[in-house]
């Protein structure tokens, strides 16, 4: 593989995974913190809060997954080599 392409791919993979995990990371942290607070205030609504948290986290984490796919494809199955 051309060293320039290899270097650019590694840099792009690092940027992809870094940027893709930044936003969802902050969002997941906020969501789970608020959910824990909600459960502490209203233990009778625990199931509903955890259900909503599960759906929210699954949606948020798929954004990280997109970045992860790009990064892994660039690293392990680079189409530009």
């Amino acid at each position, binding site marked *: 593989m051309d060293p320039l392409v290899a270097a650019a791919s590694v840099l792009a993979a690092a940027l992809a995974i870094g940027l893709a995990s930044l936003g969802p990371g902050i969002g*997941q*942290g906020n969501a*789970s*913190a608020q*959910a*824990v607070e909600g*459960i*502490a205030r209203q*233990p*009778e*609504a*625990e*199931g*509903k809060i*955890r*259900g909503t*948290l*599960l*759906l929210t*986290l*699954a*949606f948020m*984490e*798929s954004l*990280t*997954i997109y970045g*992860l*796919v790009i990064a*892994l*494809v660039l690293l*392990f*199955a680079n189409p530009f080599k």
Partner: protein
Amino acid sequence: MTEGAPQNVSTEPSKSMQEYYKLQQELLVMVLILSGIAFVSVWLVYGLNIALNYLLGACTGVVYLKVLARNVERVGTDGSKRVGSSQLALFVALIILATQLNQLHILPIFLGFLTYKASLIVYMLRSLMPSDPS
């Protein structure tokens, strides 16, 4: 007499948590149904090899959802507010496996994995529908 002890301590899941377990089960059933339909469709259109790749991704998606649900269940119980990210390791392992083995294709595996998201969207749409009054 034990003063200050909780009155209703039991090992059985509370009624509120039953709702959560029901949601988990509904999502699981929906992922399985959608995976089955998509598997047959892919088999008919693209052949068995691609369909098996799709199925591998869909199965990993089911395990991913189960691990995520287990992690969500643990949030706040052990004093931490963080959700574990062990479920992502599954996906990373799957994609690395798909890139390293010649028999596997990345795209059908990835799309199979995303079946769990389709089931979440279907569940959300169903929950938006007005419920049956009967």
